[in-house]
């Protein structure tokens, strides 16, 4: 309480220039980018959604009239235990003309037995099995090879869908023919497994739901999540499917953008997914994700930043710039800010920390409210209850994730460590490491 009083006294004693001097990082980057911009563009989204309702209704009618086959592809290893629930949710879909193709990528448990049972029961349509693991990209490509649909929906095995999710994710293709891919909205299904999953749930509401809607509005959406993403089959055929990961979702999205096609996020296409249920697993996952920024945005698709590029596109440019700026540059800048405060104003560290905490906490509250507005009727009671974890979010997002991100970027820049990741089979990593983007 004393610290809080000191903090208020500190604010009162400083003029506006001084305050900016101490809190420029928050004001320039986080507040403007994640509060002001998100609020504004979310409002734009709501406005457009209302305005485009007749267009959406018409698109839905055309979808059901044409009734195209939609291939649902699910690659995975040792994930048989999740498939029955997934198959159940697929069989409950409002859109019926779907084929389910599951690829068992070298499982060494009872996955294939479960798949065969489901196939015999008619709950899934096709199963393929690689006797030896080839990795997620090759498993997805195998499914793509034998998918017959006009659209391909890629799902993670540990997900399940809301009843109308398939139609909701396909409708945008009928609203705009220049859309090449649509991302679904991911919600956490194991919200209260432990503290790690609860904090991730709030993060998903902010970053995936609100964040991707805003990026989609801005035309700078950089990732269609592999957990739930829909693609035009002809587009996937043209770019010949997925390349070796990790980070293959973002890579695929940029490949689609390079074709001049739009990518969209569809918040009404809801998918429930499991998130890592321990902080160790979370660290490993984020470490993998964060390295892909360097590997793909900075290296493989660096041509998107070149004005000399014949196919230069301002939105593709901004997509990569936004990603690099706010996830990489600002991350390093944050460390500079920390050093700056510690070494130049060591006597105010505690007060500045408290004020920053309060500022970031307020941001999280605003972002949470925005997310509840976005979720609307689909907001579950358990998601409302996440509010009790909001006080932890500044530490989770501002310090925990930032530490992982920084380490991941350094390791990838210096050591190309993503090529050593066990996420890919060793045989694949060994070959891919020799590639130079």
């Amino acid at each position, binding site marked *: 309480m004393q610290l809080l009083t000191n903090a208020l006294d500190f604010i009162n004693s400083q003029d506006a220039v001084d305050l900016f001097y101490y809190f420029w990082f928050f004001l320039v980057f986080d507040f403007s980018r994640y509060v002001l911009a998100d609020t504004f563009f979310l409002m734009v989204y709501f406005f457009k959604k209302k305005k485009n309702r007749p267009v959406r209704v018409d698109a839905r009618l055309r979808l059901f009239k044409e009734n195209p086959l939609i291939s649902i592809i699910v690659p995975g290893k040792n994930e048989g235990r999740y498939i029955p629930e997934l198959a159940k949710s697929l069989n409950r879909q409002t859109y019926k003309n779907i084929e389910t193709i599951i690829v068992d990528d070298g499982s060494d448990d009872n996955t294939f037995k479960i798949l065969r049972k489901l196939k015999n029961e008619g709950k899934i349509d096709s*199963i393929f099995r690689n*006797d030896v693991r*080839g990795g997620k990209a*090759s*498993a*997805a490509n195998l499914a793509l090879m*034998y998918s017959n649909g006009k659209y391909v929906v890629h799902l993670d095995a540990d997900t399940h869908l809301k009843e109308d999710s398939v139609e909701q994710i396909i409708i945008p293709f009928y609203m705009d023919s220049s859309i090449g891919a649509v991302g679904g909205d991911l919600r956490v299904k194991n919200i209260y497994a432990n503290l790690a999953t609860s904090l991730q749930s709030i993060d998903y509401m902010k970053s995936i739901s609100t964040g991707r809607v805003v990026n989609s509005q801005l035309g700078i959406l950089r990732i269609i999540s592999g957990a739930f993403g829909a693609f035009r089959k002809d587009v996937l055929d043209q770019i010949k499917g997925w390349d070796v990961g990790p980070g293959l979702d973002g890579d695929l999205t940029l490949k689609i953008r390079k074709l001049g096609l739009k990518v969209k996020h569809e918040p009404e296409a809801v998918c429930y997914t499991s998130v890592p249920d321990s902080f160790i697993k979370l660290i490993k996952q984020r470490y993998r994700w964060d390295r892909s920024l360097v590997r793909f945005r900075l290296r493989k698709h660096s041509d998107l930043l070149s004005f000399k590029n014949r196919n230069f596109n301002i939105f593709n440019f901004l997509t990569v710039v936004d990603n690099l700026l706010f996830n990489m540059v600002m991350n390093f800048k944050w460390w500079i800010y920390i050093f700056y405060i510690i070494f130049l104003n060591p006597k105010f560290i505690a007060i500045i920390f408290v004020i920053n905490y309060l500022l970031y906490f307020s941001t999280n509250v605003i972002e949470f409210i925005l997310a509840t507005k976005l979720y609307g009727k689909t907001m579950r009671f358990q998601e409302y209850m996440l509010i009790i974890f909001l006080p932890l979010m500044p530490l989770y997002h501002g310090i925990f994730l930032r530490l992982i991100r920084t380490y991941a970027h350094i390791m990838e820049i210096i050591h190309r460590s993503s090529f050593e990741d066990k996420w890919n089979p060793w045989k694949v990593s060994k070959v891919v490491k020799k590639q130079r983007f």
Partner: protein
Amino acid sequence: MNIFIIDEKKITQIGELSVVSISLKEIKDNPPLESEIFIVNCENKKYAKAACEAIRRDTNPAIYLKPIILINSNENFTINNIADGYFTIEQTDALNNSFFPASYGSINQRIEEIQGFKGVKDTNIALKVLRYIMTRKMSLTPFRGSGNRFGLYYPNIDIFMRSKDETIYNTLDFLEDQNLLSQEFYEKVHLCIHCNSSFLNFMEVCPHCGSADLEDDDLVHHFDCAHVAPAKNFKQNGSLICPKCDKELKGLGVDYDKPATVFRCNSCRHTSQNPDISTTCFHCSTVTEPEDLQKRKIKKYSITALGENAAIHGIDQMFIQILDEKIKILPYQAFKILLSSEIERIRRYDISKSSVILFQITQSEQFYAQLGKRTRQIFSEIGDILNSVLRTCDITTTINEVTFISLLPETDSTGADVALRRLKEKFSVLIESNFEKQIEINTSSISLNKDQDVESVLTGVIENATAN
């Protein structure tokens, strides 16, 4: 030593061996009981097979159990498996008298041990099989071959049967069930649900349209770009070129592998990694899913101590034991004493009428062949029928397990006919519901009078039944 040869040339000397020639017709009509060994000349295979069948299908143990030796045979003749021994053309010339007793005398010694019921022949196929195994001291091992629909058969006992169906397996099941034979697993066969043939064509078929016109191809996974496609998509001018990244693949395990195989249907273009399996029977063309096929264990058999005893003394006692649980069956000799006493009573007082009735199951070979493991149940039901029709004062005996004779005191010929009609009706129902092939019942009755004796009554009632 009495050695008979069955051949067309009427030869009397084989090498140093003196033999008595006999024709195929003679062996069928009037087989020589004194023969110790039958030699069959295989110069005419068809004739030789017919000769072996004639011997083994006889019902007299003194004929069907006798050793059969083939001469002028060939290593590849299938009938070699039927015989107790065979000599090739080269070996035949070296035959001499001293050879046979040493090799086959023990079989004849065991045949001597068998105490056949005088005048009653071994019509029971189960008894024939048991006696054959006992006299040979052999294990009954199946042979692999196309001569039988199961693909595995027992040639040396199959020959007892005229039909090439599963009768012999039912018989073996029965003998095993009665602990007369012990079994050892040999092999499991899958059989057509329609005709029981094991000659089945297992085919991979398209799970979409059922066509067997499938082409299989290995999937190739290129590590560099994660492209996966059938190997044929990579093949260009003798090299493997990735259709995604245009790189030439270096080597299996180096930059690519083959994680799976896929099947493509040439009829409907459906691709699957897991084709269905379908079976088509080579005999009757029935198409079946493998899981619907019948499965049968084929076994190797050895005779048990109980089996040896039954082979020597007959197995009719066993059936009578089953019947005995429902109705009292008197020993034949005891029945004759009581019948004699009844005839004497009629002769002395001449005031009452009594009758003797007989009923007999015909085609006993088929009867046993179709019974198999149901034997105990069927004989139990026969006991129930006898019990329901006959009175407690009636006396019943058997002369074998398919021929029943009853003395009905204070019953005239009309009453006896009523009893026989009822028995026949109830048997007909039992047979219709348990047997596929027609089994007939012979019946006869005779009224006792003071002028008859026991033998004339029994002979008369047996002959009448045969005549019916």
